[in-house]
């Protein structure tokens, strides 16, 4: 990834923060919020909230059903959001963008429709979010295929020495995370894709933590499908995205059945609508699409390179500051190279619950637990971690507050 240092100039933190009303609130009287849990969900700018309100106040109707004015406006908003998302990830056509409920649903969909069976292998990695692990566990159990995984190195990277052993002629699907929500690691997509292609396997990329934080170009990635989720990219909850080339969406069978996804229906059987509608059974998340479209506009205005540079610098600063605290151990890559802004750590022997509770006392919101990546926690010998994570509105002041908070946690527990 090449970063344009000039892009940084575009980020005016003070101006951006004004767009996020929640960043102004106090957690308790006199205790301002320091939000460092953006990897769990991002905050939403007023532009997103306005778009959703405007949709309900002025345009609310069901989509693709009816010819009255509101129905046409609602359809235009919904399909317009699809086109914005397509441009955002450089898809060749809006028809390649399927709206789902979230990343998890998109990944479940893929685990259902990709073809594999007895004697075949599906490969994941040890750093997957449960949403990119459990669907494949279920699917391999159901079909009689075998689930295999690539292990991790001590510094939080994929163990590429495992590639030749794990990915073989039997491998039909390789599904892995672009940027880890637990470790922050950005994975080497090119090396993984090259290996998968050499054995003819399909490649799925979980972009839940990458699309919100860096420019992602689906055509450059060279994978067969990606999944991401609206609520981590300044959009609302309740909407996610599956991207796959049109040819794949045409070739794979349907997932959920219902209204909108059909072409012709008789009591004896049905035929399917063309993609993306084939994968969108029932009334879709219309207001959420309006919100996601506004979120994509917002990110595009700021510029994803600028977002990436800002977060990269913040991550480097945070890693350096955190590691100046005695007894603090980073779980994941210790430097900002090929890494995003989700930083997990252990503070001595203190349990993350205790750390998180005391930070909350200072208004600092971090996440504690296994972050839906329990196997990776087990790999690093920790039951749970404390995780701080940033987004475009995060500032060095947020990091300073965290570091000061952690020092006070240590004093409190005499650690």
């Amino acid at each position, binding site marked *: 990834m090449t970063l344009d240092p000039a892009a940084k100039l575009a980020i005016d933190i003070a101006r951006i923060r004004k767009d996020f009303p929640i960043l102004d609130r106090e957690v308790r009287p006199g205790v301002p919020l320091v939000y460092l849990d953006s990897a769990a969900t991002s905050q939403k700018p007023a532009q997103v909230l306005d778009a959703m309100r405007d949709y309900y106040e002025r345009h609310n109707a069901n989509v693709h059903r009816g010819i009255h004015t509101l129905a046409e406006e609602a359809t235009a908003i919904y399909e317009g959001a699809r086109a914005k998302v397509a441009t955002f990830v450089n898809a060749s056509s809006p028809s390649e963008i399927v709206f789902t409920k979230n990343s998890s649903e998109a990944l479940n969909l893929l685990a259902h429709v990709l073809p594999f069976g007895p004697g075949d292998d599906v490969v994941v990695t040890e750093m997957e979010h449960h949403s990119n692990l459990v669907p494949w566990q279920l699917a391999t159990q159901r079909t009689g295929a075998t689930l295999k995984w690539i292990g991790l190195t001590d510094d939080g990277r994929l163990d590429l020495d495992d590639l030749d052993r794990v990915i073989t002629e039997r491998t039909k699907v390789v599904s892995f995370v672009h940027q880890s929500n637990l470790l922050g690691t950005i994975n080497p997509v090119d090396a993984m894709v090259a290996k998968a292609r050499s054995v003819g396997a399909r490649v799925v990329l979980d972009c839940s933590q990458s699309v919100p934080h860096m420019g992602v170009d689906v055509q450059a990635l060279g994978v067969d499908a990606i999944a991401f989720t609206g609520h981590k990219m300044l959009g609302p909850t309740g909407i996610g995205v599956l991207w796959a080339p049109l040819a794949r969406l045409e070739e794979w069978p349907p997932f959920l059945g219902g209204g909108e996804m059909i072409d012709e229906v008789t009591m004896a059987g049905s035929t399917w609508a063309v993609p993306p509608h084939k994968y969108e059974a029932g009334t879709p998340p219309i207001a959420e699409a309006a919100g996601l479209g506004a979120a994509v506009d917002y990110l595009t205005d700021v510029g994803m390179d600028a977002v990436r540079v800002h977060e990269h610098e913040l991550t480097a600063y945070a890693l350096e500051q955190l590691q100046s605290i005695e007894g603090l151990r980073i779980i994941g890559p210790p430097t900002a190279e090929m890494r995003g802004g989700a930083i997990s750590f252990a503070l001595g022997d203190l349990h993350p619950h205790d750390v998180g509770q005391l930070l909350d006392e200072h208004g600092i919101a971090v996440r504690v637990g296994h972050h839906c990546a329990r196997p990776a926690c087990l790999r690093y010998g920790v*039951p749970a971690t404390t995780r701080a994570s940033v987004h475009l509105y995060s500032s060095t002041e947020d990091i300073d507050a965290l570091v000061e908070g952690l020092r006070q946690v240590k004093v409190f527990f005499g650690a």
Partner: protein
Amino acid sequence: MSVDSMYQEIILDHYKNPHHKGLREPYDAQVHHLNPTCGDEITLRVSLDGENVADVSYDSEGCSISQASASVLTDLVIGRSVAHGQAAYDAFVELMQSKGQLEPDEDVLEDAVAFAGVSKYPARVKCALLAWMAWRDAVLQAAADVSGSAS
């Protein structure tokens, strides 16, 4: 609401120096309980002697609240009747569900009254309850085994 109401001195003492920790023989039942949202775990053994609790031993990993709670629990139940332990369990569960509205009975709960403040933090109630749920599960199994083999 201040965090000091949760992290009472008694709790921090039990956390730093847990009582009766470690797994011991003999035992009549062993259970393993897990808090899937935060990864706290406990393996707990109960050894009964007729109507009495001869020993409760455990190995656990987790936050200060879950660790202190296990320690306090063992103080309350070891060497006493199963019925007494049951009463303590009921009182503790009621206290944890009280959202800080209950004045705990020190005669029944002893050091466990220090957990009253925890009940104001919904996310932490399950930490405090982990060892107690394991204890109840184990004692039911042990009692079933003991009565089963006696008849």
